[in-house]
């Protein structure tokens, strides 16, 4: 089994993995970072979205070995462990942007990526379109859209913008 090394949430990590290990399994099972979820086996739900070298990707559709030397950011790395929440997380809390919370880590990571690409002023149409790859079985999306619009604004000027 090869050793796979990468930077996860700013820390250098490495672990022995079977070649067929998906990035999401590596994060959850080898590193015990269980904030990243698995909601489907067809690459459609987005519960597993993380940032790989600065871009939102589905960690269930990437092999861990492919990420050798890469920089990975997961939901756990968005805010400092005992510091305040990231503005996008705070916006989800303020706006009741979750119910069961299963989709939330993927939603928040997708939302931050959306801001990185599209800026801090996001209208409802843009947010809904950009959420194509993230499914929620609870909320009906309305409050997720509100949370993202608010979080995007709050990220302006914030030193935490990922």
């Amino acid at each position, binding site marked *: 089994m090869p050793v796979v090394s990468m930077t996860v949430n700013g820390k250098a990590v490495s672990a022995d993995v*079977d070649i*067929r290990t*998906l990035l999401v399994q590596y994060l959850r099972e080898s590193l015990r970072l269980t904030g990243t979820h698995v909601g489907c*086996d067809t690459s459609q739900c987005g519960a597993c979205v993380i940032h*790989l070298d600065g871009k*939102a990707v589905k960690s269930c*559709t990437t092999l861990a070995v492919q990420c050798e030397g890469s920089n990975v950011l997961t939901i756990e790395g968005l805010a400092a462990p005992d510091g305040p929440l990231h503005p996008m997380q705070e916006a989800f809390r303020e706006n009741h942007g979750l119910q069961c919370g299963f989709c939330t880590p993927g939603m928040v990571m997708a939302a931050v990526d959306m801001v990185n690409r599209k800026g801090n002023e996001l209208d409802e149409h843009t947010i809904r379109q950009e959420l194509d*790859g993230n499914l929620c079985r609870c909320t009906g999306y309305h409050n997720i859209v509100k949370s993202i619009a608010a979080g995007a604004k709050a990220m302006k000027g914030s030193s935490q913008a990922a």
Partner: protein
Amino acid sequence: MYAFKYHQPKTVRQAANLLAKFPEAKVLAGGHSLIPVMKLRLASPSDIVDINKVEGLSGVEVKGRSVVIGAMTRHFEVAGSQTLKDVLPALAGVPGSIGDPHVRHRGTIGGSVANNDPNADYPAACLGLGATIITNKRRIASDDFFTGMFSTALAPDEIIVKISFPVAKKAAYQKFKHPASGFALVGVFVSKRGPDIRVAVTGAGSNGVFRVTSFEEALKKRFSPKSIEGMTVTAEGLNTDIHASAEYRAHLIGVLARRALAAA
């Protein structure tokens, strides 16, 4: 997923040698078609030849009257290419409609074309523009490349290196998206470059992407929606599935072709 051996070649030649050596090997590009089918154990390659570290396979470049796109160019890079928006906006618009942002960050044009999914968008763009698929061995005209559902003219040890699209004066793509999957229920790409008129359809044919020659003939007089007003295609040879009947798909081909012509 079943176990496999993993290779990370640095050059196209090394990758081709690996494919020649292991007959059950598969190229891994963006992985957004291959990894899902491996997870479902519908594919079980003995070896994975990951071409993500091969240099020089990505980028969008204008060469004379063509735009050449490297096989490993991701959907979001193609969608964001200002060069492409300037010279061939109809093609630049295609990848933006593929999947979702996360899929577009990984999926590649070469992977999509090699996969030839009967509902994929890029095959329609290739056939609709008369693109040339350039491999490590030869140049293949798109008319000869797409040979049926999920099948192409590629040999087992052949790798797509780049795709060359002639710049058409008039071109447009119209896609009727499946609301859940985002794939094309039907998509129609039309183009006119001098006397070469093309109408290519994805999502409908039971043999994958195809051209509508009756529409192409009618458009020779004038490249306008009027020229094919009231014309229909037969439902024979089209797909019926839980999403749509062959008759409905046949109807959509006419509607989308007219919309594309109006937009071109």
